[in-house]
């Protein structure tokens, strides 16, 4: 393979060398940290995704070394490839911050904001985005879109009211599963994700639409209202699976596995897609080989009240005679 041509770009003042043809978003991800633009629709594992939600807008203040004029408008960083000598502003540009605030307001126009009910709350990209960039109030005065809940098969539930039309699930159905049955109906503001005449998506990898959904539009029906994400404990595990890689995250509450998902990286994208057998049918600890607790960012609500690093000293010295006496006393009292 011939050596790839490297181009120099400068994102928020940080220089980086990337292969020609990389998008600005991926170049920023190679640097990492705060300067990575948020993305709601782009998914690195799905070809063709991106360009729909506009949250990753950035300002290109210098087009390239040859043509140093700035780009006239903000560009979607997931769709714009880098040029040699390009200078990009993301969080250093007030214009971008302001535009992103507008985008969040736009995405939330029809969103029901039912986070207290939604199972995605706590790991929802839209929630994070709204918290970081959004305004506290909406200026939208009209009725929000209303849809009935739709069951896609017996394991997946679709809440169209929460959908932001990122099309990720459509790409999953197109690329991961054999043939797609669900897609977008209608156009523009009226578009909705649907299975045509409620036809079940019946494929071994259809459960991945749950993982790719950035909001709570596609949720696991077996986990529906079981528990809040932040009360469960994520654990990395794997098993021998003949259909997929078998590497998953188990979400424990006490002894029970409440939910199985793919392993997500820092950008909320699964590392490898998993099959429906792993996701829905293997919910016992004996099915899995546990690797260890999952690393959760300490800014995430999921890490709250999990005292991993803190090991408080025992308050009372263990005394077997005292324990016996307490048990006896409890029995005596409860008989009363």
């Amino acid at each position, binding site marked *: 393979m011939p050596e790839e041509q490297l181009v120099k770009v400068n994102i928020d003042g940080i220089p980086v060398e990337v292969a020609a043809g990389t998008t600005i978003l991926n170049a920023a991800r190679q640097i990492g940290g705060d300067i990575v633009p948020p993305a709601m629709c782009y998914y690195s594992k799905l070809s063709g995704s991106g360009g729909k939600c506009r949250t990753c807008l950035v300002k290109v203040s210098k087009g390239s070394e040859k043509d140093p004029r700035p780009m006239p408008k903000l560009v979607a960083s997931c769709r714009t490839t880098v040029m040699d000598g390009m200078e990009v502003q993301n969080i250093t540009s007030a214009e971008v911050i302001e535009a992103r605030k507008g985008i969040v307001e736009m995405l939330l126009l029809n969103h029901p904001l039912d986070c*207290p*009910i939604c199972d995605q709350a706590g790991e929802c990209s839209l929630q994070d985005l709204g918290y970081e960039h959004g305004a506290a109030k909406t200026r939208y005065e009209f009725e929000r879109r209303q849809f009935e809940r739709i069951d896609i098969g017996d394991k997946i539930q679709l809440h169209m009211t929460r959908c932001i039309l990122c099309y990720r699930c459509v790409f999953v159905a197109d690329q991961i599963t054999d043939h797609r049955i669900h897609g977008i109906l209608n156009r523009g503001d009226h578009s909705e994700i649907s299975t045509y005449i409620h036809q079940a998506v019946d494929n071994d990898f259809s459960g991945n639409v749950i993982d790719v959904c950035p909001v709570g539009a596609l949720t696991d029906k077996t986990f529906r209202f079981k528990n809040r994400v932040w009360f469960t404990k994520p654990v990395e595990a794997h098993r021998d699976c003949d259909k997929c890689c078998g590497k998953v995250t188990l979400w424990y509450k006490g002894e029970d596995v409440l939910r199985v998902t793919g392993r997500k990286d820092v950008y909320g994208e699964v590392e490898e897609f998993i099959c429906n057998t792993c996701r829905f049918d293997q919910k016992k600890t004996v099915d899995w080989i546990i690797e260890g607790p999952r690393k959760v960012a300490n800014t995430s609500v999921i890490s709250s009240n999990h005292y991993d690093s803190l090991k408080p000293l025992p308050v009372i010295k263990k005394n077997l005679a005292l324990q016996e006496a307490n048990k006896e006393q409890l029995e005596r009292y409860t008989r009363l």
Partner: protein
Amino acid sequence: MESLTNKKKVLEAKPLNFWERAYLPAILSGLSITMKHFFRKPVTIKYPEVKREFSENYRGLHSLKRDENGKERCTACGLCALSCPAEAITMIAAERQPGEENLYREEKYAAVYEINMLRCIFCGLCEEACPKEAIYLDGDIVPTDFLRKDFIYGKDKLVEAPLNQ
């Protein structure tokens, strides 16, 4: 050792004089103080029968509120349990079935909602965290009881009485 502060006082222990040795005068002066208090306004109250007036923002026993149509407001979002520094609150959510729309406001509700009153420190953070204005610490002092298990208050004790009763 030499005193550092010069505040040291050397006490003299003198033998008791005749009046002190007589015993009765000391008893009488002590009793007179006691008698004086019989005619004063008592500082204590007889608690269960008489109650002190609480301040308006007093935080007492929790209550789970209903909305104007008598539906339970709580949707079991778990934010109260998350904010609780004493980890006193637990809940189990359930899905509202068709026909129960007059009981619960949202499609999810708390099937089990328990507060351990022995753990609770009445800080009011649950009230502050609640997005549905469902929980308020507007009740009384938690009554005493004999068994620890009786301090775990379930929905039977926490939820407000229905409207038309």
